[in-house]
């Protein structure tokens, strides 16, 4: 008799892939996916239950199926995917409260896995270069996903106080990237010309989507508890990423970034919130010691490899590709050689 796992947020890209993956897991006998809309993609053997986590019905689902492990992946990152900021906030905050209330009532629940984000650390010039799990944000994120995630983590902490018998693990993921997933960052990086904040070159870490699923799997079937940062090794600078794609960047003076961001948002291209702009100014890097020691997870992709895979998968090659640059270098070298041999024969 294996675990009975409930995955909240199964109709979203990662949730669906995760449910499909869990089914194949030997220690798991049953996977129940919950979401408000039916999954647009195949979730394999996993059972889909149409339920809103904002509704107390979720408690019945948990009780009837005798769920022992709950994986909460239903914190939404972008307002566009939730139909506006108001409903996004409601799904994130009220949904989490209801789900946790249901878990608290269910004596069978033994494990709770929450997919959180490194966004809870915010981004500011006063933060240390790397955030450990104990580091508090110097400037708390006060908009969007980051703020919601801070609140969600607060409720989860409250839950673990009230139900000390439940093992709680919260994974704070760095920006997840890959050929399939769509996030605010992938939207941004897909722009033909990347607007950047003038005079800033943020550092960031990435996590490949496959690695994020593996980390979630380990958190679900393993026995790690507590808060764990999850990110790929190494960091990239935004300018570096743009050059790896061969795409031009346009520095935008700090004072006008808000306006530019709003225009881009209107055009429906990118989700440019204040939080996103701060991230694009100051960047964010997390310490992943606990990921190795507590979770026992070793990412297969480094930040650079994850990014390359994303660029390859989406075919995001700009005009100034690496091949072209190499050719130019060869041409320049040959030209210099010719000029010098001519000068040499003259003298």
């Amino acid at each position, binding site marked *: 008799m294996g675990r009975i796992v409930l995955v909240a947020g199964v109709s979203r890209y990662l949730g669906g892939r995760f449910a499909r993956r869990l089914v194949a897991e030997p220690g798991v006998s049953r996977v129940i996916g919950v979401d408000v809309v039916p999954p647009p993609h195949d979730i394999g053997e996993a059972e889909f239950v149409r339920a809103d986590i904002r509704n107390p019905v979720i408690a019945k689902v948990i009780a009837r199926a005798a769920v022992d492990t709950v994986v909460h992946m239903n914190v939404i990152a972008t307002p566009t995917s939730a139909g506006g900021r108001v409903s996004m906030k409601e799904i994130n905050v009220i949904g989490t409260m209801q789900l946790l209330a249901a878990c608290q009532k269910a004596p069978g629940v033994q494990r709770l896995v929450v997919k959180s984000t490194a966004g809870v650390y915010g981004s500011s010039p006063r933060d240390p270069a790397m955030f450990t799990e104990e580091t508090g944000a110097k400037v708390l994120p006060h908009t969007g996903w980051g703020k919601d995630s801070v609140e969600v983590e607060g409720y989860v902490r409250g839950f673990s106080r009230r139900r000390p018998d439940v093992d709680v693990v919260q994974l704070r993921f760095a920006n997840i990237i890959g050929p399939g997933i769509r996030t605010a960052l992938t939207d941004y990086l897909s722009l033909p010309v990347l607007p950047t904040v003038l*005079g800033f070159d943020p550092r960031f870490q990435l996590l490949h989507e496959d690695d994020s699923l593996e980390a979630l799997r380990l958190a679900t079937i393993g026995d790690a508890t507590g808060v764990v940062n999850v990110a790929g090794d190494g960091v990239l600078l935004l*300018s570096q990423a743009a050059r790896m794609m061969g795409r031009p960047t346009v520095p935008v003076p700090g004072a006008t970034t808000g306006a530019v961001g709003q225009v881009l948002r209107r055009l429906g291209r990118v989700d440019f919130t204040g939080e996103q702009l701060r991230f694009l100014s100051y960047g964010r890097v997390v310490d992943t010691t606990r990921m190795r020691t507590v979770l026992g997870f070793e990412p297969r992709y480094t930040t650079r490899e994850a990014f390359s895979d994303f660029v390859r998968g989406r075919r995001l090659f700009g005009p100034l590709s690496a091949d072209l640059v190499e050719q130019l270098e060869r041409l320049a070298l040959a030209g210099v050689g010719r000029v010098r041999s001519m000068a040499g024969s003259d003298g």
Partner: protein
Amino acid sequence: MTKAQARRQVAAAARRAGGAGGDTPGRRHRTTPLLADLEPAAPPPTADAPLADAPAADVPTADVPPPDAPVTDPGAPQAPQAPQASEASPASEAPQAPKAPAPRVRAARATATRKRPVVRTAAAPSGPASPRVRVGASRRTSGGERLMAVADDAPPTDGPADAPPSGSGDGHGLDRRIAGALAFVRRRLTGDYTVDEFGFDPDLTDNVLLNLFRPLYKRWFRVEVRGIENIPASGGALIVANHGGAVAFDALMTQIAVHDEHPQHRHLRMLGADLVFSTPVLSELARKGGATLAGNADAERLLQGGQLVGVWPEGFKGIGKPFSERYKLQRFGRGGFVSAALRTGTPIIPCAIVGAEETYPIIGDMPAVARVLGLPYAPITPTWPLLGLFGLIPLPSKWLIEFGAPLPTDELGAKAADDPMVVFDLTDQVRQTIQQTLYSLLVQRRSVFF
């Protein structure tokens, strides 16, 4: 030079430097007895005796005792109990690992003036050494046989390091340089370089950033570096220096000094104020140049990673102080840098920088302007803002940078970082050492500009 003479000279230097009577010789030795007990390697304020940090196991002369024997120094009275305590552990490792940083033997120190050690040599482990000269196995593996004698009034150790091989000679050099430059451009255009978690970009720093400021270092300020051998060849160390001169040129010059003069060409990882990291352009360049936010988290992480970290604990109080207070050390913060060194067990290297204060003599402040611009101060110098942009050219003062003997912190233990008494005492000791070295360097500098 007798002690009294030296003292008079230092006092004169202090007066010349605009120092009030605050740091007269009487108050100078505020290093408390508590510290002398706790930290054997720290030179006791009054001891004129040579102090052996730890004997080098393979030195053949009679001057340094064998590792297991008690210290017997015929030349001088013995410093009580301290050396024995420190010698046991390093000595036992020394023979097996001759390449590891060997314990130094420090020469007698005229503590009244805190002049540089009279003679310090780094000899090859088997090389002969005269009995009059204190010998220690070199910290550097490559420079084992290089002799480095720094006499009291000898000319500075050596000039700025030679530039990378100049391609003026044969055509191959030029070809290689062109190819190198093109490869650099290609790496930059394709993003083919790595930065560390702090945003440090060694490729850019070595090929661009340091080159930008090297003319300033060599031609404009003509920086002279002393005591570079006090910086270990590898492993973490914390360089603590004085700050001055409106713009933090001293940090940049120290970075170049460490990179160019040190045989291992180490990079100095500087700790900067948060204002640096919220300022556009500056923030980007600072991170790429190896700086990070001044704070215990970053300092400890860098030191733990075996990096060479530079800190200017006076901060804006130091660079924003008026010219009349030049070379008078301001408050050293809360001693955060000391607790970072204690927690990581890394040595503290006091560093005195002379010359920075005269680059922009601050004769006034415009607090209203500073408030509007959100700056800690808005200086007025004789040329700024009077001469407009020309006022931004720093005066070509003559610079001396001296790295002092490292103060080991590992035997105090990481727990000492939570003992405010130890932290304050060590902070004070570092501060006093820098202040004394500043005075003695000021005495030696012939004039402000030469």
